[in-house]
């Protein structure tokens, strides 16, 4: 890809495109062109003045570096729970079309996750707030500014008393600076912070782990491979210990104790499914073993075996060991792990030097939402400004946020959508998307990035920093100035040069926090206390795709099969097969979860008649109703729900999808509840998953190799079966792909990346239910019951690009034929749609446009489309192309330089996104190519090889490293 350029948007008054402050209705094409023209002009002709209002700048002479055909890449950063995920944003003639990883950013390392891939769609979300609103009516920024001037004068007179600012925790130095400025100006004002998601620090300290070094990892409710600001870095490091190279692998061993299946849990060598309460018991027993005592708590045989092995490993492999407690664990468990790490001298865990990167523990913060509610109830607040957060939806039930908020006279909301909170605020103001505004963010390890816009704000929205800056001092300061001001003194002598360098690389050098030895309690707390829970527990988790609900209106993420279930367009109540059997529950049965307001309540095995569904339950506690999903690996004494669904003001995509689990939440214990009653109501709800059969039926589909002897256990490598036909020569290039199942963690970043790159449509829940999803690459999930095999196996399946492609043979119009480089090309224009090719594809990787799945012509989401890829019409077959547009781009670059395409020049979208580098693509004719080397490994195999389709896409076996043969049946616990 071309090197990222510094963004030329360097003028003070360019921040908002002309006139974009004030226009009510939805963005017309013409409007877009105006803005586009503006941004292009600004992008290129930095010296000129802003173009006149309401006229289009014709694209006669392309501005510098803005050739219509080629893409430009800009380094910027996207917020992930407030932390930075460094990205390179691709821009086609002024339209951001895709986000890709930034190799120099510590929390990207060139990779992305699914959320990052989907973030670009959020920019074009048709339901984004498009204008300031006063009492629901469209207003203007000017009007708000006038009004605020008065308020501000009044506030000044009382030093800001009565003003409450409610933000999400942030790592943005500029935003923090503005907040502090506000507090300086109005000392009596109070700043609260709220997020429904986890805090990644404990009283200002952040743990950081080196999974590349750890030989033994114990993860307790810690989904560090997936649900962590540094998950991409962690996944990369973890996979480096799973990759078979030169026939050998120096494998780590992962022990997981968790209640519900997670991405990390699916990679475990030994997994114990346990409710948080039971997890305490297990840890207590482990402690006894480590201390050489006889384990006191009564445990199952399997559990004892695993814990014994774990204790042996921890002591044997110290100091290269680490115990990781997830953010949802209570302090005792986290202290226990910290103490154990210290005792074992665990060298793979460090602390970041203070202060914490994110503002949760900022000394000037007046506390969390609980404190805010108290203040509002106390009546001391007359002006509440909510920035970014959506507490009306995400507040724990017990706080009764809405009630408290009603006591505040003046309520102002800045947000990207007119969401549940906006509905409660007379003033709503549109917040800018990170691709259209200046800002800055810090990575988990402190490394700062400048967030630079690729496009002028589509809807005249502003960033939190700008907004808060204005609240502090009502004078229009734009984000660009604010950000530069923040970093003015960091650059050293030549600030401008440094600034350009930062924009160029995407990181501000010298901002990475220094590390220190972790401080830990001298003695591990005794976990037996509180471990005595009986009955069913409930754990609450952020949804793997829509998180706390902020992504609910993102159709890509709604249709992305959940990493822990393959479900789409829904959340569900996860129950274990055993519990389901006890309650006679099947997938899709609607169950009622009620939490005893006071303590515990036994499992109710009885099925209440449907009509009693609405009736108030005896426990007086909060209740929630949702469809059950029987999850292998779910703890028998625990049910799990995910947040982010059942929204009422998310937008057309996210409204009324799934059920809202927040009512079950309590500020005291946001992640787990005890004493849960599960009642089966008579009703059913159609849950749709992209996969309906999870057993391999004893077929040779996913191979598993033991890390101790990969070559010996992986089965035979592929040999080419005889053929009646003369061999076909591919003299130039022979493109091929290798997917390393040992490294794949099943995070589905590849699926989202492919969707963004290849203009793959969203078809909706009903169509997916019919079996018409369109993803070109899918990640299959198999549950193995073979002893010695991991219970969960992931297998990404793109088109195999068979050399003897069965699909081609049967196409009556030659719409799918082989290219001279061995690609199985699909010619959309020629396709008449017999679908014979799909029938004859043994891998079923072909996708068909059964209906017209294209977005309406006037929808802004069309602006995201990749101009290098055809948008497919109704009645046409489509499938993975190995990103042929990228191959051709690489070819053009190479030919300009008068050379062959070099290994690594061409990277497919899925390969590029993969956090663990599980996907390798390249030219099989190039002996030096990485893909050739990888395909030489002894664990190499071809899927359905016996059919003699000669797939170009092949696999390396999943590697597993169990301590006890046949004992890693996590779900058996």
């Amino acid at each position, binding site marked *: 890809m071309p090197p990222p350029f510094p963004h030329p948007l360097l003028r003070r008054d360019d921040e908002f495109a002309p006139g974009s402050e004030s226009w009510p209705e939805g963005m017309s094409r013409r409007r877009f062109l105006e803005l586009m023209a503006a941004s292009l002009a600004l992008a290129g002709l930095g010296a000129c003045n802003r173009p006149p209002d309401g006229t289009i700048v014709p694209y006669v002479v392309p501005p510098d570096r803005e050739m219509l055909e080629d893409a430009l890449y800009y380094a910027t950063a996207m917020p992930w729970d407030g932390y930075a995920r460094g990205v390179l944003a691709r821009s086609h003639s002024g339209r951001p079309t895709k986000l890709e990883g930034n190799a120099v950013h510590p929390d990207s390392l060139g990779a992305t996750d699914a959320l990052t891939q989907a973030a670009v769609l959020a920019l074009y979300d048709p339901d984004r707030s498009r204008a300031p609103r006063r009492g629901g009516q469209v207003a203007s920024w000017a009007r708000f500014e006038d009004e605020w001037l008065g308020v501000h004068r009044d506030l000044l007179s009382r030093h800001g008393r009565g003003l409450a600012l409610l933000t999400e925790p942030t790592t943005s130095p500029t935003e923090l600076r503005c907040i502090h400025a506000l507090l300086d100006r109005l000392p009596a004002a109070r700043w609260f912070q709220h997020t429904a998601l986890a805090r990644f620090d404990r009283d200002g300290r952040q743990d950081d782990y080196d999974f590349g070094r750890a030989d033994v990892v114990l993860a307790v409710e810690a989904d560090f491979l997936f649900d962590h600001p540094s998950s991409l870095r962690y996944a990369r490091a973890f996979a480096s210990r799973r990759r078979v190279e030169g026939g050998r692998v120096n494998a780590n061993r992962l022990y997981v104790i968790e209640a519900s299946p997670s991405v990390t849990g699916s990679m475990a060598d030994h997994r114990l499914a346990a409710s948080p309460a039971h997890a305490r018991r297990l840890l207590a027993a482990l402690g006894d073993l480590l201390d050489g005592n006889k384990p006191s708590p009564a445990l199952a045989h399997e559990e004892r075996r695993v814990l014994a092995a774990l204790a042996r490993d921890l002591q044997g492999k110290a100091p290269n060991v680490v115990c990781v407690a997830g953010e949802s664990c209570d302090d005792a468990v986290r202290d226990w792990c910290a103490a154990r790490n210290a005792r074992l001298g665990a060298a793979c865990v460090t602390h970041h030097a203070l202060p914490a990167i994110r503002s949760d523990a900022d000394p000037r913060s007046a506390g969390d939402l609980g404190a805010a509610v108290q203040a509002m109830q106390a009546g001391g607040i007359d002006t509440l400004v909510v920035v970014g957060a959506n507490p009306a939806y995400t507040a724990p039930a017990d706080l009764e946020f809405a009630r408290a908020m009603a006591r505040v006279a003046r309520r102002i909301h800045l947000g990207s959508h007119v969401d549940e909170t906006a509905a409660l605020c007379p003033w709503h103001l549109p917040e800018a998307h990170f691709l259209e505004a200046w800002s800055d963010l810090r990575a988990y390890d402190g490394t700062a990035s400048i967030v630079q816009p690729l496009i002028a704000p589509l809807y005249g929205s502003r960033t939190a920093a700008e907004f808060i800056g204005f609240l502090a001092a009502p004078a229009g300061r734009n984000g660009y100035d604010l950000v530069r001001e923040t970093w003015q003194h960091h650059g050293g002598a030549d600030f401008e040069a440094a600034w350009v360098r930062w924009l160029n690389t995407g990181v501000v050098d010298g901002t990475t926090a220094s590390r220190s030895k972790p401080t830990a309690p001298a003695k591990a707390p005794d976990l037996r206390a509180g471990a005595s829970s009986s009955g069913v527990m409930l754990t609450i988790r952020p949804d793997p795709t829509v998180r706390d609900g902020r992504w609910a209106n993102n159709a890509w993420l709604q249709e992305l099969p959940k990493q822990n279930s393959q479900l789409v367009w829904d959340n569900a109540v996860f129950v274990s097969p055993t519990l389901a059997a006890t309650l006679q529950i099947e997938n899709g049965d609607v169950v009622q979860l009620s939490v005893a307001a006071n303590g515990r309540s036994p499992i109710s095995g009885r099925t209440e008649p449907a009509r009693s569904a609405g009736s108030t339950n005896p426990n007086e506690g909060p209740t929630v109703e949702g469809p059950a999903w029987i999850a292998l690996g779910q703890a028998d004494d625990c049910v799990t729900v995910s947040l982010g669904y059942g929204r009422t003001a998310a937008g057309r995509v996210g409204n009324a999808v799934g059920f809202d689990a927040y009512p079950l939440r309590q500020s005291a214990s946001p992640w787990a509840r005890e004493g849960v009653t599960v009642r089966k109501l008579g009703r059913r709800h159609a849950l749709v998953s992209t996969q309906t059969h999870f057993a391999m039926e004893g077929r040779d589909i996913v191979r598993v190799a033991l890390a101790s002897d990969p070559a010996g256990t992986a089965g035979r490598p592929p040999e080419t079966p005889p*053929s009646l*036909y*003369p061999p*076909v020569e591919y003299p130039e290039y022979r493109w091929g792909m290798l997917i390393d199942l040992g490294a794949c963690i099943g995070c589905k970043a590849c699926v989202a990346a492919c969707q963004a790159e290849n203009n793959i449509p969203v078809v909706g829940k009903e169509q997916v239910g019919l079996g018409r999803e369109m993803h070109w690459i899918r990640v299959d999930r198999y549950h193995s019951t073979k002893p010695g095999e991991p219970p969960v196996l992931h297998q990404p399946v793109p088109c195999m690009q*068979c*050399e*003897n*492609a*069965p*699909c*081609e*043979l049967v*196409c009556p119009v*030659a719409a799918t*034929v*082989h290219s*001279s480089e061995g690609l199985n090309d699909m010619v959309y224009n020629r396709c008449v749609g017999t679908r014979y090719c799909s029938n004859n594809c043994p891998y079923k990787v072909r996708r068909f446009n059964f209906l017209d799945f294209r977005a309406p012509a006037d929808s802004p989401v069309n602006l995201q489309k990749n101009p290098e890829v055809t948008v497919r019409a109704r009645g046409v077959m489509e499938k993975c192309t190995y990103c042929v547009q990228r191959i051709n781009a690489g070819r053009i670059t190479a030919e300009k330089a008068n050379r062959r395409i070099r290994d690594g020049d061409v990277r497919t979208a899925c390969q590029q996104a993969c956090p663990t580098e599980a996907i390798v693509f390249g030219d099989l004719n190039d002996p030096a190519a990485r893909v050739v080397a990888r395909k030489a490994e002894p664990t190499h195999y071809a899927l359905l090889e016996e059919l003699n389709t*000669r797939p170009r896409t092949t696999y390396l076996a999943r590697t597993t490293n169990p301590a006890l043969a046949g004992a890693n049946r996590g779900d058996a616990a």
Partner: protein
Amino acid sequence: MSAARNLLAGFAEHDQLVRALRRLRELGCTRLEVYAPFPSREVDELLPGRPTPAGWLMLAGGMLGGSGAYFLQWYAAHDYAYNVGGRPLHSWPSFVPVTFELTVLCAALTGLVALLVLTRLPRLDHPVFAEPAFVRASQDRFFLAVHTADPHLAAIDVADLLRGFGAERIEEVGE
């Protein structure tokens, strides 16, 4: 010669017709025609005339169609050459079905055309239709047309002879 007429005799029975026909043939008559509601092997044997060439024409048509079809496929596969599933361009086994079908099709169509040409059909007007009784030639009557100018008949009264064989009525019709 302008006086040349055909005598058209109608018989009720197939056998009467056959007997009359046999007699005339013994006399050496050649310019005869029979009209019957269905073909009859005896009549066919008695009547002079060459065997039909239709079979040979259909064979030729079939051969032409078949070879044409095979050539078409061979040409098309090489004219725009692409690699389909690693199969050779000249995948002859795959070319067999279409070749066969077109052989049959062309043979059949040739047969249809040949029949029309050989019988000079369609011809909606014909002198025999002038005879009112002839409508039964397609139903249950058997007609025999004898050319009066036939030298072998100069001596005898053809009409009498035919009546002798049971001809119901005898009309003169044009040629």
